[in-house]
């Protein structure tokens, strides 16, 4: 869970064989393999043999993304990511920018949805440890949403005329809900002013620019009819609204109105109109944008970035995003004594300073799971916020690096690897190489999974990987004596070598047992048998047997001779083929013509000469039984020849 760089997690390995040291090798993603031993200094230095059972240990560490709730977020955001990448190829300019903004909001909605889920789970769980874990997730997710939404305003949204303050006020309203809540509570009271929170709430509302609510609260005060109250309410109501700028009035127009209004506030204040009620005076001082007053009400606009926005609202409402950083120092100083600046502060600081790179860098440390930075960086990249010249290795690599990191953590997960594949697809530079390596490491538990991974390879033209998957599956089938299933894998990858090996295995089985196995496959091979010569031979040879058993002796004889003549058959199988001719020769009916008989004799001659040569060379030859069979064959052939000549002659005569 979200290891910051300084929280080091430890895992003890109690194994005496590790006393000489421990070595490690990276697995995929969040995985290490440890084994005893030390790195040899010299190549011939050997590890001391411990004589004990040495084990390889697999060490894995969880990341929060693997938590069930966050897994939902992984899958949900995956869709958004892929859609955006698709749009990136189709849209340009303003249309694409709208799409980016949509995606950003969609990502945030996802975070919010799962914040709600987590919240529900915290409410329902009884296990204290689990609750703590959920709380921790919740906290991080909250922070990530906060940072994301600020980045969205500053870097992605780029509002009309560069006016950021209205957007930032919305951001405040959404994330600092105390003011709204206090207001709702007070509205239910009969005499809100009697509550201690009354004035605080008004300050908070004013500081967030929620003027209308502040007015409503003020008009509930028993002294609302007095002059000072009336003047202030009047001033508040006439405060020029920035949102009008969006509705068509120009920035200059607004500026003028604002200056007039502020002068009026200033005049009223200087005329001591509110001197009786210091609270009213505080409000008017806020309206005037007086520097000192913000420190006085700093509890109502804690933390510093809240104060920054409040200050910007009253001191320079049309400030550009790039000028916000002028306020940072003063606001941080106001809180410096009470709180130390944390990681969140430094990220927001970088964001307000428009330092995109620092935001990404720091976020990467805070959110160890990679989800946040990978997606945000991708968005910023599409927005053109990452200029390549600012980094020596180019901005796309920055995005790609983070995507690869995120994909890596997905690929190491038992189930989420399939999501990781999509992310790697969108890494132009290294994605493919990574994917190839990762795919080699996914365990092929079942044929179905193998089929799925095969499809991933085929879609990406990774022929090498596809072939290797088929090979692994096929070899596994061979080991399990499932030769038929093995053949389907090799046919799938069009692996000529292995198809040949299998065909030979089938033939061997046949010549040993005299029976074919896997007939249900071989008989239906169709054109697939053309993949390898041996396979073709197998198919044809089987056809010969079928023809023979169906009594189609002439066709069978023709096929047999064709097999011998085309030299499809392996030499060691010739003898089997020739002996298969024997029953055909012994039929009363004439099967082989004289021409064919001569061919058969030629083949027999060729075979015997070769074996004689072989015998001379290495002492190998026919067994006695084989010799007898061949003698019978020779005899049968020499009997068949005159029979054939005679019959042919008769036919000719006729």
């Amino acid at each position, binding site marked *: 869970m979200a290891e910051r760089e300084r929280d080091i997690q430890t895992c003890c390995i109690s194994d005496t064989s590790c006393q000489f040291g421990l070595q490690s090798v990276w697995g995929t993603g969040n995985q290490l393999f440890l084994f005893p031993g030390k790195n040899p200094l010299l190549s011939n230095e050997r590890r001391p043999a411990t004589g004990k059972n040495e084990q390889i240990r697999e060490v894995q560490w969880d990341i929060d993304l693997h938590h*069930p*709730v966050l*897994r*939902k977020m992984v*899958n*949900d955001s*995956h*869709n958004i990511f*892929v*859609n955006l990448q698709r749009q990136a190829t189709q849209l340009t300019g303003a249309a694409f920018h709208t799409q980016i903004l949509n995606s950003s909001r969609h990502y945030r909605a996802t975070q919010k949805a799962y914040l709600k889920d987590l919240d529900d789970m915290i409410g329902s769980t009884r296990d204290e440890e689990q609750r703590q874990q959920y709380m921790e997730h919740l906290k991080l997710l909250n922070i990530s949403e906060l940072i994301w939404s600020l980045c969205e305003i500053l870097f992605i949204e780029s509002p009309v005329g560069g006016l950021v303050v209205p957007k930032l006020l919305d951001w405040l309203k959404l994330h600092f809900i105390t003011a709204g809540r206090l207001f709702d509570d007070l509205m239910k009271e009969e005499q809100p002013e009697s509550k201690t929170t009354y004035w605080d709430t008004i300050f908070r509302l004013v500081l967030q620019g929620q003027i209308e609510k502040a007015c409503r609260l003020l008009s509930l005060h028993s002294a609302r009819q007095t002059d000072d109250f009336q003047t202030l309410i009047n001033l508040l109501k006439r405060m020029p609204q920035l949102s009008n700028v969006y509705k068509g009035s120009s920035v200059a127009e607004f500026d003028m109105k604002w200056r007039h209004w502020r002068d009026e506030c200033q005049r009223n204040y200087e005329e001591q109109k509110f001197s009786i009620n210091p609270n009213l005076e505080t409000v008017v001082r806020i309206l005037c944008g007086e520097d000192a007053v913000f420190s006085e009400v700093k509890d109502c606009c804690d933390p510093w970035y809240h104060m920054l926005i409040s200050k910007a609202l009253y001191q320079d409402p049309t400030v550009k995003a790039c000028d916000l950083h002028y306020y940072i120092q003063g606001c941080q100083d106001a809180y410096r004594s009470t709180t130390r600046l944390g990681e969140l502060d430094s990220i927001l600081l970088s964001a307000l300073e428009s330092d995109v790179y620092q935001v990404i860098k720091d976020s990467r440390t805070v959110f160890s799971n990679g989800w946040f930075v990978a997606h945000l960086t991708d968005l910023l990249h599409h927005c053109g916020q990452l200029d390549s010249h600012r980094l020596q290795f180019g901005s796309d690599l920055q995005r790609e690096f983070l995507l690869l990191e995120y994909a890596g953590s997905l690929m190491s997960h*038992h*189930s989420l690897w*399939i*999501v990781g594949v*999509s992310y790697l697809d969108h890494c132009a530079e290294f994605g493919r190489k990574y994917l190839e390596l990762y795919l080699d490491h996914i365990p092929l*538990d*079942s*044929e*179905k*999974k193998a*089929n*799925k991974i095969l*499809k991933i390879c085929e*879609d990406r033209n990774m022929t090498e990987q596809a072939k290797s998957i088929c090979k692994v599956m096929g070899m596994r089938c061979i080991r*399990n*004596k*499932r*030769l*038929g*299933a093995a*053949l*389907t894998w090799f*046919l*799938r990858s069009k692996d000529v070598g292995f198809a040949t090996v299998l065909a030979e295995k089938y033939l061997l089985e046949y010549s040993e047992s005299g029976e074919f*196995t*896997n*007939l*249900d*496959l071989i008989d*239906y*091979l*169709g*054109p*697939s048998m053309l993949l390898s010569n041996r396979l073709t031979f197998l198919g044809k040879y089987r056809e010969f047997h079928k023809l023979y058993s169906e009594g189609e002796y002439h066709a069978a004889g023709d096929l047999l001779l064709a097999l011998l003549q085309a030299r499809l058959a392996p030499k060691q199988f010739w003898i089997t083929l020739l002996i298969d001719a024997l029953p055909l020769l012994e039929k009363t009916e004439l099967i082989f013509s004289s021409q064919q008989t001569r061919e058969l004799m030629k083949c027999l001659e060729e075979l015997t000469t070769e074996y004689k040569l072989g015998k001379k060379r290495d002492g190998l030859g026919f067994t006695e039984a084989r010799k007898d069979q061949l003698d019978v064959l020779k005899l049968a052939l020499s009997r068949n020849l005159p029979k054939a000549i005679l019959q042919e002659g008769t036919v000719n005569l006729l």
Partner: protein
Amino acid sequence: MADSIQSFVKFVSRKISKIKWQPSQKQTLECSDTFVTGSWDDEKNKICLWHLGMQESMERDEMDDALEPALKCEADHNGDVTGLEYVGSDVIVASSSTGSVSLYKHHTSSQTMGIQYKWQCLHSHGNHLCPCTCLAVRDKTIVTAGEDGKMVVLSAEQKSPQRIIENADSSTINGLVFLRLTEVISVNSSGQLKTYDLRSSSDAPAQTLSVSGELTSLHSVDRHPGQPHIVATGSGDGVLGIWDLRQEKSPVSLLEAHNGPVWEVKFHKTNSDHLFTCSEDGAVWHWDSSLVGASHMVQTQITGTGAGSGGANFSVNPSFQFGGSETLNKWLSPDNSKMEINSLIDDNILPVNSVDIESQTLLCGTDSESIITIRLPSMR
């Protein structure tokens, strides 16, 4: 009733390999509101039972909630769920990639689920186990097949297998479905469709049909609910095959469809002109053949060449056609230009492993760890 397609995506933190409606009770006409899912490829796989409050929500006119399933109960499952079926109304049978098959009982009173019985090591290569790939159920009879090429017949009420067909297939059987009470259809990874008669003493298939041409694998099979001789298959290269078991040898038509293996095909149980397919390419398609017949019938009368009309020439008397004992089934029609095909989930990226349809609600189980529920407009 809404006429557009509505859908809801529920993320469930597990890849779903199988999804199945509870069969609707025969006594009542009401549709089922319960379905079961099985997961795969996770460290801990689960069988989950879900409730879809469609009926209640529809009455209150809250269509948005109506399609969101709520978890009723769950149970652990050892290995990937490779097959999932109901045996009766509260007993579920699941096959596993560990080679075993388990019966789960749903205790409706306490809303819990537990294993009732487990057949261990049904499928193995010698000593080590191998995945069971699929199963089919008819009444109390369960048939399973595995990567070992074996087929095992079980009875839900009996601990020992009724029958083991040792060498049922030399390639892997990927899908099973009952043809009739004692007959099953299997499809395998070398493109063959076989039927087995479970009563027959021989282990050989009663019938073997095959896709001709390049070797392709078949991954899924379903039979027409009304006319069992019509069978649909889904293949590894995305083709939907329609077979007529009365015609030997090869499929009647092969329709190029998906861009990846078709993991499941499913006929609508009551509107059998409708068929659904899901695929590795992430799409779910609705095949509507209800229009195929309409004008085609007229054509048949004129030309008299319809395959199903037995080659007889009905050129004279059109009324004879209607009086004929058998009209051409729409799925077997040689002219499928009238077939309407709809893609139901366009924005889905990852594979859809399983679909099931009951009335107008289609369920999809995906690899993006989600259940998608789709409400279809009423079907012709």
